[in-house]
């Protein structure tokens, strides 16, 4: 099981800025190990963001996103107390969901 994400959602005016730091190796599929064999790509493929359960953003990522990915986006109409949920799924089928409250 992957480590939890760190999520911060801060409301300012009628919108909230969400910053997420995920914990994932994001292996590019370009590197070789000690024996010269290519290390297979292992990366987050799908990211979904929800506000109070409603999907507001989906993203599809390739192996070029950096290790321990960082994502920042802004949700319109979010206010303090709302719940922001983030889910990622990687190409091995592993998945993780975490939630934070807008402050």
């Amino acid at each position: 099981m992957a480590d939890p994400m760190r999520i911060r959602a801060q409301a300012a005016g009628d919108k909230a800025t969400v910053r997420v730091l995920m914990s994932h190796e994001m292996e590019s599929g370009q590197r070789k190990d000690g024996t010269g064999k290519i290390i297979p790509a292992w990366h987050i493929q799908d990211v979904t963001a929800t506000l109070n359960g409603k999907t507001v953003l989906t993203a599809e990522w390739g192996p070029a996103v950096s290790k321990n990915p960082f994502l920042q986006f802004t949700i319109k109409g979010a206010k303090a107390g709302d719940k922001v949920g983030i889910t990622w799924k990687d190409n091995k089928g592993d998945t993780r969901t975490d939630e934070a409250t807008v402050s």
Partner: protein
Amino acid sequence: MYRCHKVILTICLWLSAGFCFAQSHAYLGIGRPATPKEVAAWDIDVRPDFKGLPAGSGSVALGQDIWEAKCAQCHGVFGESNEVFSPLIGGTTNEDIKTGHVANLTRRDFPGRTTIMKVATVSTLWDYINRAMPWTTPKSLKPDEVYAVLAYMLSLANVVPDDYVLSDKNIAEVQKRMPNRNGMSTQHNLWAGKESSYTNKPDTANVACMKDCVPEIKVASMLPDYARNAHGNLADQNRLVGQQKGADTLHAESKLGMSAGGTSSGVAIAKPVSKVIDPAIALLSKHNCTACHAQDRKIVGPSFNDITKKYSGKVDYLAGKIKSGGSGVWGAIPMPAQTHQIQTSKPLPVGLPAVGQNNPRIIYRSTSMQTRRETLKHSAAVASLLAATGLFPQYVQAFEKAAFDAKTINEAVKAMGGSAPVESKEVTITGPDIAENGAVVPFGASTSLPNVKRVLLLVEKNPSALVAMFNVSPDVEVNFATRSKMGQSSDVYAVAITNDGKAFFAKKEVKVTLGGCGG
């Protein structure tokens, strides 16, 4: 300054040698002895055995609030940002916390060194935050706040749990969990380590020559002037190890002992460009503005020239911006409010436009200068990248008809008809000009265009160009930031696709010093 230091130093020596204060009048004309209160204000260091650590405590939760208000602008919300400084947090594991050695320090392929990877003593973090942070107002944090900020940083590194309250009582326990606590080496001669038989003698000697001395020291090796800038301007680049910013290699090196008239500090200072220092520049330096803003290039914030160009004469607007801070006008990185140090707002903004006017030597690169041929080339390049993702059949078809070749660009774009990607000022891509570390290159993509369905981030020369694709809903702003690997220097594109299938893009060239894909 030098004098002050000398006085303090002398006093320290007296104190340590057991002399009493009254003897200081023996040195007439070099000021007065520092009072015990003054010495106490200066003597704030915290040692590895926690000598000098003030009592107090602070929670992770409080630390997070302070962090987001005062620290996150430069260090990132999670201490992970490499946009301004090296990242503080990251690269350590729970295994490191057990062993006290950071495994990633021995990996040559591991990009960068974070602070938490290197630092061995938690006291050093406390001391540094206390004396030097925040950048714009050092020493403004109360001891409890320093504990809180440190607790938050340690929680980010998983050294302490998220509900921890750090205090002078339990900081010794935290020391036992520092990831690199066993990584400190004293095996060199300036330390009283094994090699020097545990003596405190330095490993250099400087014996003054009294007789038959060499009249002039001859330099045995030197870097010729033409080679100085061989790797680009080091001051513009972030470096993996050592000092973050190198010397300004666009200008010749200042030579020791060559400064006209000599300076009291004994250290040669680079010749100022003009003899009369603009009072505005003095003010900018005094208030640390130059930490983030330069005359002619973007550092963290925009250059003074760019500000002048945009807001010439708008003194009240600029004064307001400086006082209250802001973000979004020049990019995502916010500027903190500067109310604490500028009592009157007048001098700075009035001086600001003048700074730019004195230096009309900057050449602005403008996208409007592009030839039609270049524009078409970029459009075709974006189309080919979109085609390669396999997500947009219309581009694949168009591209099969007209290969990407300078001669057929016109045809290629024509073949794509209305769907040809168009460079647009309403699409913005942000990122560094030079990325020293290709493993983590921060990018932002945004647009003010309506009816946008998708936003793509593409690095042209990566093995697969598509880095990330964001499917936009009406509930989010079309403004995303993430970090990408880059294998080599490349053009990077942000492409916005509208509901009716049209593609608009913005382009940025990023130079990469160390590629972040292979190993």
